[in-house]
């Protein structure tokens, strides 16, 4: 079916950015990590900052992120990426420094580093992949796991009385004066990928302003951990993750957005999901 008349260099409108290496990503088919990597790389490419960008990778499925970005990278101990990024940025204030972390890394073992880097208003970008689970280690409950959601360690579903509430660390960070931009995005449809990329662009551009930390949550699926096909997982995410983790900007240019009321910030009754 190929229309070979069209396949010519001058007609090329989209191909993988050169800021990503040719290494084949180890992620499961359909995993949002790959898409998130690509839009970050595209922003670095479009801003022309490949030689001035330093990434910090986490422990979790994206532990090997440095194999895929053709920029300088430092691997951090589990959860410590914001502390490592703080040092890198302070020593290299002209560089663009970002962390890339999962919910177990950023919102469980690394909670202290996350909150204090945000509260100090470090001029870094943090990209937070929230898939509601510890993907790498076999799908255990994360702080972000939804009420009722099954995981390897909550086989009958997460219970508030036993396991506490899902942690909405993004809303929490928005209340700190050190954060300049806080947003939640997703990368499961073309429209969402475009919005998430614009958010990442803003989060990188903000580093030039030196007004504080920019935080981009990407609510993402872990189809392996959730035990669904990639397409089912994206649908499940829309139906169950988004009501608990609403998409959109929370804080822009240092100010909470108008639609972010106290009720929206606090969400005192987390919705319960029922999964297989």
């Amino acid at each position: 079916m190929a229309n070979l008349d069209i396949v010519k260099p001058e007609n090329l409108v989209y191909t993988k950015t050169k800021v990503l290496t040719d290494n084949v990503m180890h992620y499961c088919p359909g995993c949002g990590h790959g898409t998130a990597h690509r839009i970050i790389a595209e922003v670095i490419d479009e801003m022309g900052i490949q030689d001035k960008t330093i990434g910090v990778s986490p422990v979790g499925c994206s532990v090997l992120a440095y194999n895929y970005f053709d920029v300088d990278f430092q691997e951090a101990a589990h959860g410590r990426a914001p502390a490592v990024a703080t040092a890198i940025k302070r020593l290299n204030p002209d560089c663009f420094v970002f962390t890339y972390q999962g919910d177990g890394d950023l919102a469980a073992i690394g909670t202290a580093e996350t909150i204090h880097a945000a509260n100090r208003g470090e001029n870094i970008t943090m990209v937070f992949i929230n898939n509601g689970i510890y993907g790498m280690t076999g799908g255990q409950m994360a702080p972000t796991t939804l009420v009722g959601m099954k995981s390897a360690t909550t086989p009958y579903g997460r219970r508030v009385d036993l396991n506490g509430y899902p942690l909405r660390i993004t809303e929490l960070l928005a209340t700190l004066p050190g954060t300049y931009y806080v947003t939640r995005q997703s990368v499961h449809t073309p429209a969402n990928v475009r919005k998430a990329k614009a958010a990442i662009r803003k989060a990188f551009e903000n580093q030039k302003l030196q007004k504080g930390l920019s935080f981009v949550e990407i609510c993402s699926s872990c189809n392996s951990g959730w035990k669904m096909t990639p397409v089912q997982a994206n649908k499940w995410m829309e139906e169950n993750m988004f009501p608990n983790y609403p998409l959109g900007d929370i804080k822009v240019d240092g100010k909470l957005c108008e639609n972010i009321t106290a009720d929206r910030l606090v969400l005192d009754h987390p919705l319960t999901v029922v999964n297989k």
Partner: protein
Amino acid sequence: MAFKGQIVIDTEHCKGCGVCVEACPMKCIEISKNVNSKGYNYTHTVNDKCIGCASCAIVCPDGVISVYKVKC
């Protein structure tokens, strides 16, 4: 203005996740019965309705789709 497009899939690196199939507004893409050397059922195009919108390419987690487009 109408556009005509054509995608080129790096089938050897496609993981057959099907996310691009869902994203295509023109239903151009299907998962093949054939597998690549990793054992994944890769995707292929099944009609010539492509408009070069790149929706498939921007949601592909593995970045294996390139998009070509002309005005017509």
